[in-house]
């Protein structure tokens, strides 16, 4: 479970995240949506401990991220929007290195499985710099999954990935959620959020403007019961402006 309470992040004079609170329960996928510059990436970076919040509390399964950083991070994995894997390592070496980082016992079967599922097995001995952008994205996803994290934070995970890879990732996320693990997806692909997420958090200018299931958000936006997330999102963000 991830609990965020009163999260603030200020860059110089800009409030990137402003008093954000939400809870993500085990076995749930949360969709984080918002216009450009809404503070989605900053929120995810605060959650994975890369960015230090100006104020607020982040609990990862009861571990306070600011005081029990290592224990909290052991439960997390983060896939950035534009990943920069080590170009000079081979695909296998990269996976092996990440397994060592997270102290994974006997990682080879898991590495084999992930590379096969994401169609990278043939490339296992190739240097990362020879991979296409989509393949690098797949590799980063494999790296995030190798230690079987309890919480997965994904920032625009489908950019550059082929349809088969996208399907594999979606299936894998659904499977993980069934096992009681949780996921946060930040994306502008609203159909993906609508398809996968149990709850949706809409933020703008760093502030929460709606939260809940699609049904609940429809009610908040006073939208019709069959309105798509795109319609609801446009209505809510227009009202904010």
């Amino acid at each position: 479970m991830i609990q965020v309470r009163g999260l603030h992040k200020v860059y110089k004079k800009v409030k990137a995240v402003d008093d954000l609170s939400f809870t993500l329960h085990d076995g749930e996928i949360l969709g984080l949506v918002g216009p450009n510059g809404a503070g989605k990436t900053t929120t995810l970076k605060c959650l994975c401990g890369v960015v230090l919040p100006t104020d607020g509390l982040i609990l990862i399964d009861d571990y306070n991220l600011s005081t029990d950083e290592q224990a909290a991070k052991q439960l997390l994995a983060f896939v950035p929007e534009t990943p920069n894997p080590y170009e000079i390592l081979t695909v296998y070496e990269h996976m092996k290195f990440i397994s060592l980082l997270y102290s994974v016992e006997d990682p080879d079967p898991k590495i084999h499985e992930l590379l096969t599922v994401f169609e990278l097995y043939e490339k296992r001995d190739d240097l990362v710099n020879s991979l296409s952008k989509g393949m690098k994205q797949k590799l980063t996803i494999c790296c995030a999954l190798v230690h079987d994290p309890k919480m997965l934070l994904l920032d625009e995970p489908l950019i550059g990935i082929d349809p088969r890879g996208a399907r594999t990732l979606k299936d894998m996320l659904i499977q993980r959620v069934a096992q009681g693990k949780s996921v946060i997806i930040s994306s502008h692909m609203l159909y993906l959020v609508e398809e996968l997420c149990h709850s949706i958090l809409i933020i703008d200018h760093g502030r929460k403007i709606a939260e809940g299931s699609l049904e609940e958000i429809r009610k908040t936006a006073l939208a019709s019961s069959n309105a798509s997330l795109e319609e609801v999102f446009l209505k809510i963000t227009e009202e904010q402006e």
Partner: protein
Amino acid sequence: MNALAYLNILLLKNRVKGFLKTPKHIIPTLILFFIFVFPFIAVHSLDIPQEVPIFTAETVHPILFSFLTFIFWVNIIQATTKDTLIFSLSEIDFLFPSPLKRKTILLNRILTGYITSAIQFLGLIGFMLFVFSAIFSFSLWRRVIFMWSGVVLALIFATNLGGIISLISSHLPEVKRSRNQKILLAIVMGFAGILVGSMFWYMGQGYPLLAAAQKVLNSVVIRVLVYPLAIASDIAVAWTPSLPLLLKMTLLVSLCMVTLGIILTIEAHFYETSEISSRELWQSMEKVRRQEIIVSESFAKRIKTIPPFGKGATALIWKNLTGLLRDIRNLIPTLLLVCFFFIITIIRGTQVDFIFSLMFLFFIVVITSSNIRWDFREDLRRIEIIKLIPDSNFKIISSEITTPVLFSTLVCYSFLICNFFLYPPSPDKGVLTVFTLGALPLFSTIIVAIHNLSVLYYPPQTNTQLIPSLLSMLGMMAVVTPSAGILVLFYLMDELLLGLILVLCFAGVTALVVMKLLAWKYRNFDLTIS
């Protein structure tokens, strides 16, 4: 196995393997190595009388001391506003979110930084002293070890202090950081003021400028103010071990260890500031590496625009000219360099034969043609645009080289006019001027075309910038050397006119051949091969 140890070993192994597997990297490196090292090996092996060293410990010490002090203060001032703990983007994406302790990641970065600097400075100092030892007789290895130890320890100390300031500043608000920088700047200005004031005092005592500078840098006050750097300079210029030297080395090593210890004890969440600085640095380095044109918008708006002209490939001339104007500030260093050389030749005297002034002009053509922006290289990054131009390849590459050739020729012509009036009349002056008017654009064409040819072998996507520069330098020498040879030969034979015509024909034919070759290579250029 420890994850970071595994990573560092693999990174090193794969880098070496990657280098050894690429002939495109090995061959130019070997050529370069032999070009630089062979002459000195030859000098070493020949039994020729050795020159008396012009540099002694007393003269090298102040130079080194000033260099280390400068680096030290730059590092310290930078650390107040920007994070000096720079990480790679991969480290940011994969190590920062990992459960590794921040201090472990920091220590890994610092230690790998030490090792990298130590290796780089060993190569640099080793090569520099090797060159000097070839000319002046002195034992090489002992000096290399002392100088390397002194310089590396001083840099480690400066880096550590910068790191401490960075870590402390990382959680300070912008206002406080800016105030701290002002305080530090005031300290540095005070230090510089003491230096200048003392120099004036010594000059008032009758010392010449250089002797006064040397006296000040060796003075007790200055040494005390930046004592660690003073002892680092002492170590660097020593070549016999002694007890005082050993004590100085022990002190410097202790200072490095203490400052490293302080870095590791500071509890600071440096990820955020490091990420910002690192991303900024990598982005700007990426732009420099790609020779990407960075134009200031406010400056570009102040520059008069050239109305679009050209049809088909010739529109590239307009695009490149516009770029040249908007980027003209980046050419200022080149122009200043050219003016500097011009002043030097004038100071040396204009009472020599006019033909010697031409050597200067051909030197200038090499500098201006080599230092202009590489529009062609930039355009290869947008290959899908230029490959689709419905025009002949020859016309495309001719349009691409027009702007640099035009710039270089204009600069050279302006100096040709100055020289024409500055040098006394001579019987050959008219014919030499006419020859120069024709030869300068031809040589510029050859140099720019060779540059562009090397770029086709090492396009921006290969992320290699040094090798194409070296290749084009070699190609340029292959053209300029025979021309100079012909000219000197015919001048000595008193057949100057014939020599000039031959050189002009040679340059014309070479320019055409190189351009045809460039067009052919461009036609067959396939980006996917790289």
